[in-house]
């Protein structure tokens, strides 16, 4: 779509904030940052979701991963309530990791979507923050 945007069209787009300031995330725990119900003929795009791991609060332990693929800690967009099969996610690779903003995640299927940050170890507490945004079209 490369048409010009009218004021009416612009009024029907929203930027939905995904904000999670620095917080202690205990081992094995997850926190829902945002939840968004999507109805028929609505759409949203996820461009940017950044995860910051600011401190490891349990020094001196070898992290035991509950889910190896998801790394030490991750933030992702999920459909439904289970932390499996994220539609988009950023997993700890360095102190600040992000989804690829040039590969947009477009969602049109009606349902309830959640953005969840999770600690994927059973023995390491972390201090984490996350920042992102959804663009919602209706």
């Amino acid at each position, binding site marked *: *779509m*490369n048409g*010009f945007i009218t004021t009416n069209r*612009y009024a029907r787009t929203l*930027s939905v*904030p995904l904000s999670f*300031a620095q917080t202690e995330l205990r081992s094995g725990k997850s926190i829902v940052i945002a939840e968004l119900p999507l109805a028929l003929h609505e759409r949203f795009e996820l461009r940017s979701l950044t995860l*910051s791991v600011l401190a490891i609060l349990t020094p001196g332990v070898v992290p035991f991963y509950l889910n190896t693929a998801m790394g030490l800690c991750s933030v992702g967009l999920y459909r439904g309530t289970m932390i499996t099969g994220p539609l988009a996610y950023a997993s700890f690779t360095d102190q600040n990791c992000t989804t690829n903003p040039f590969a947009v995640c477009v969602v049109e299927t009606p349902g309830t979507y959640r953005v969840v940050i999770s600690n994927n170890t059973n023995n390491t507490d972390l201090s984490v923050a996350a920042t992102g*945004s959804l663009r919602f079209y209706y």
Partner: protein
Amino acid sequence: MGFITENMLSNVVDLPIALPATDLHMGDWVVVATVKVVAPMRITYKMATLQLFACNVDTALITNGNKTYGNLGLSFLTMRRSYSSGNPGAAGGLDVLVATGLGTFSRTLTNVIVATTPGTYSWIIANNMQPSTDAIPVIPPSTSIDFRLAVTGSVRLELDSA
């Protein structure tokens, strides 16, 4: 000024800088938001508001001896590039919003920060208090000067600045 197309709008992401009311203890700081910028992205930072709701001591009694950094008020929100650890009030911040008392403090919207240098940009809120260094402290050094505060702001990320 040209028109905006759907593609252009899709390439613009407004990211939040948001912290709900939080108790911040003396000398502590919290990372509120982080944005990773790679070429050819651009971020534009205009708007932020810092609100101090409450303090556990009378703010009129706070002296310069209570401040970690004399020019950064009671509390401050700073924007830093490639922040990893350490007191965020140290030199090198790209922008700072200072709260000098209880109430609401906002950035001047015309003071626009535009950054294209790749890196990770962080917004950090800090409590600028420390135990008094005055010879005769007004507030006992054993008293922790804590604030309840909140931050609301936004930064615009453009994926293709060209």
